[in-house]
């Protein structure tokens, strides 16, 4: 009787040992970057320039970006950066900021070590850092202080 009990005691362990095989299965990993915060598709009617720009950017998002996938390594993405830059400054300054951002995004050498990675998993590169206003420059500190 005791022998049977001992053998019965081993059965749950044996069942669990079988489950252990699952550890060696390939892991289901998603390499896709987390999605950017929801896009604002509304058209800004405050002036003609922003109205045209937001319209063009919306068209780009709907026809290209949303279909192609969320691939920009920066946060905010280049298109959002352009809209924000124009809204925070003017069309000319915003266009220059966008040209600079586009060049940095196309960096053939992928040397983006000087950007911090934020909670979205992307390189943090806010518009405020490029307005040429020193007091608005923001850093993410890896040690905890901002």
């Amino acid at each position, binding site marked *: 009787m005791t022998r049977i009990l001992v053998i019965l005691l081993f059965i749950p362990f044996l069942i669990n040992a079988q489950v252990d095989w699952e550890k060696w299965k390939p892991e289901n990993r998603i390499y896709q970057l987390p999605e950017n915060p929801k896009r604002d598709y509304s058209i800004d009617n405050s002036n003609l320039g922003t109205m045209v720009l937001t319209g063009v950017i919306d068209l780009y998002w709907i026809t290209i970006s949303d279909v192609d996938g969320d691939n920009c390594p920066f946060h905010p993405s280049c298109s959002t950066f352009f809209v924000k830059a124009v809204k925070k400054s003017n069309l000319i*300054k915003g*266009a*220059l*900021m*966008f*040209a*600079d*951002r*586009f*060049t*940095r995004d*196309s*960096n*053939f*050498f*992928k*040397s*983006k070590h*000087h950007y911090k990675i934020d909670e979205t998993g992307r390189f943090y590169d806010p518009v405020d*850092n*490029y307005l*040429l206003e*020193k007091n608005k*420059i923001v*850093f993410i*500190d890896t*040690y905890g*202080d901002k």
Partner: protein
Amino acid sequence: MKRKTSQISTIFYFLFFFVLSTSFAQVVSKTNDYFNLKNRLKFGNYLFCQQDYLRAIDEFNAVNKKIKNDTLDFKIGYAFEKMRKYDKAIEKFSELNGNKNLSGLSRLETGKIFLLKKEFPEVYKLLIDSIEYKNNLRQYAGRLKYLTYLYDNKPLPDSSNYKLWFSSKVLPDVMKFYRRKQNPHYKSETLSGVLSAIIPGLGKIYVGEIGDGITALLFNGVLGFLAYNNFKANHKFRAWLFTGLTAVFYGGNIYGSVAAAQIYNSGVNFRFTRELNLFSKKHNYFLPKFKFLCE
């Protein structure tokens, strides 16, 4: 029969001792007041040392209501300071202004809070009359004052002052910060812009962003070449399109170089402040450490 009698007696003794012990326990609990002032103070101190400042303040306040104690007032202020409730801490420390023993210390702590709040003029105002501080505290006041100069954007005082106030143990580190503050390794924003105007991307390379610089050079070169080639081939629309794009990217490259220099300089300031913060925290802002503050 005999065995049965012994079992009954065992049960009887067990019950007797059980009842006796519970009644005794009740007597003890009636006579012991766990919430007496001594216990509350002891518990408050324990919480304070465990950095459970909020509950420690409650205990200290309960004791303070019955027996006014300046040390407890100081500890409450210190607990507020640790919780980053700076205004409440300042208020508490100001209550100790006329105190014989703790007036100087509370002023030093207030100075430290103003430094943490980046209200530098208030620190100088507090510490300017270092004569008011007792001899043993004057050196702390002096150190805190000269430490504040390293945070502030004011012109730095002469380095001999630092040699006067800081001990030889920490002086080399302090002087490193002094030199870094005096001669920060900034990059010129104008030079960066001019360099990028001469050769696209050169300003970025000057700032240290070599990859971005070479990319800007390639972008401008390719777009410029396309504009030139289309003009040569008499494709006017394409030629003007690429000329426009070249102009935007050329302007963007100059703008970006100036911005990159500015960000670089802000980074220099940011790293300096962060390292100075770590250094100051390590040395408790050069203020005295006390056992009663669990330091």
